[in-house]
């Protein structure tokens, strides 16, 4: 069975932030919240690299493990989703997440952080697929429409790949071979340990 993953190729990302914008627009993400971000290392220096990062939909997700409520769950194809009805906004998931993925509408306003928001792999939430309620809370459910996340679909250099882990890691491996250098995809060791790919 397919196992959905993100892959960000630092050798290709040109920091155009199209993925960030696409995500905000497609999911109508609230003001001030970024489900995806592009981080540039050594900005302006030789060897500068950028990485587009959001929830990696970890295989043994730390956020699920520490959540004191049953807010977060993983679908059959490995997408990590959450229920905003159950979330109590404690922020534990953010403390546990290696990639800083969970976001909160308010960060420190007297403990009222509000409901957690994060990348859904464009797969909505527990509500009925493509319903109004689902869209309002979680954004578009492109997976239900047979489409991949918009960020990766839009990426002009195909630095950001989304899809079945086996397929995208093959694409990436081919790139590494053609380049003649490089190693595993960034963050995969942490997000998908024992993945073998």
């Amino acid at each position, binding site marked *: 069975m397919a196992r959905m993953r993100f892959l960000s190729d630092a050798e290709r990302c040109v920091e155009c932030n199209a993925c960030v914008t696409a995500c905000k627009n497609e999911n109508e993400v609230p003001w001030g919240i970024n489900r995806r971000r592009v981080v540039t290392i050594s900005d302006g220096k030789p060897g500068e690299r950028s990485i587009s990062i959001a929830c990696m939909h970890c295989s043994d997700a730390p956020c699920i493990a520490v959540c004191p409520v049953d807010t977060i769950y993983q679908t059959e194809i490995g997408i990590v989703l959450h229920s905003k009805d159950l979330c109590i906004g404690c922020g534990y998931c953010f*403390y546990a997440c290696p990639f800083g993925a969970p976001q909160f509408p308010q*960060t420190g306003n007297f*403990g009222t952080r509000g409901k957690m928001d994060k990348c859904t792999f464009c797969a909505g939430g527990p509500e009925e697929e493509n319903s109004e309620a689902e869209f309002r809370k979680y954004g578009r459910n492109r997976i239900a429409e047979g489409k991949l996340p918009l960020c990766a679909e839009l990426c002009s250099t195909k630095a950001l790949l989304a899809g079945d882990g086996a397929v995208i890691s093959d694409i990436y*491996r081919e790139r590494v071979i053609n380049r003649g250098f*490089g190693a*595993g995809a960034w963050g995969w060791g942490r997000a998908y340990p024992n993945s073998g790919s």
Partner: protein
Amino acid sequence: MPRSTTSVATMKNNTATYARKATVIFLLALMAIFLTNSFSQTGSLAQAQTQAQNSQSPVGAPLGNSSDSDMWRAVKRGDRGNVSIIDKKSGVLIQSGGQFLRDLRNGPMFSYGAAAIIGIIALLSLFYMLRGRIRIDSGKSDVTVTRFNSFERFSHWLLAISFVILGLSGLNMIYGKFLLTPLVGKSSYGDIAMAGKWLHNFVAFAFILGLVLILIIWIRHNFPNRHDIVWLLKGGGMFTRGTHPPAKKFNAGQKILFWLIILAGASIALSGVSLLFPFQFSLFADTFEIINRLGFNLPTELTGIEEMQLSLVWHSVVSIFMVCVIIAHIYIGSVGMEGAFDAMGSGEVDKNWAKEHHSIWVDELESKERAKAASKQVAAE
């Protein structure tokens, strides 16, 4: 068209030329690959392939650009890059402290915490079975003395009730998911947890107020004195009938409890406030700096998220410890000892009880009263 008239022989000839050309191109390509590889120091294709399979190591290992791997190592360590969005903190690509939080919170803290709470209850039950209720040895008298005035009782109950609410709603954050979800279902449990969180966040302020109040009103009774050693050596007379080591208003056990509540309570309150207002304080970096002056070598450069992780773990560990302490305190203040509850209930205790447990305090009260009566008499004359 000339092509269409070509004979079979020329076609064969052509094929041979193509084959020769292909061989030359193939050899050239091989040479090119060989040359590129000997110029790049990364080695063969096979090596690149094995590297690609190793998902643990970072991408971008260089062609003679050695600073690349340093850069990725720095990222792995949690160094911050640049982002074009407002939240500059999000420039950190990866943080590893979450693993420690998860391991501890879902591992030892969870199981040892439960064991400690169950353990203390078991221990107290055993004590009750062996020793029974500690009676007033000399029986009840008809006279009572005022032990705690209404303001003292108010402060105590403010602290106590808020502690119980905070303790229950806090423990719910750790154990509720496993204990209550199977009973009430996910959705109702979500409501319970939400209510618990609101209670926890607001009642916290009552707890802090209670803490400050008891500190102010009782600190003067809680400095150690020589009677405390005797009291402790005799186990407070708790284990043997008829033994009553002397004590002032508070005995050594109560003094230890007082300081535990003040110190652990303050520590819980500080870490709690840092959880309430995330990323505002550097509680642990500051504390570690002070501890380091005693010769320790704790990290003083902590990221915001490490501060939060430590606050969460510390808050719950100290809380569980205090829950155990307070369970024992509740036991001795209610079922464990005859006459004890009145002190905080009505504030009036039986005189015989007071004489047994706080002999010096009673003496002091009596001499004060005598002095008062004497001065009144003087005034009347």
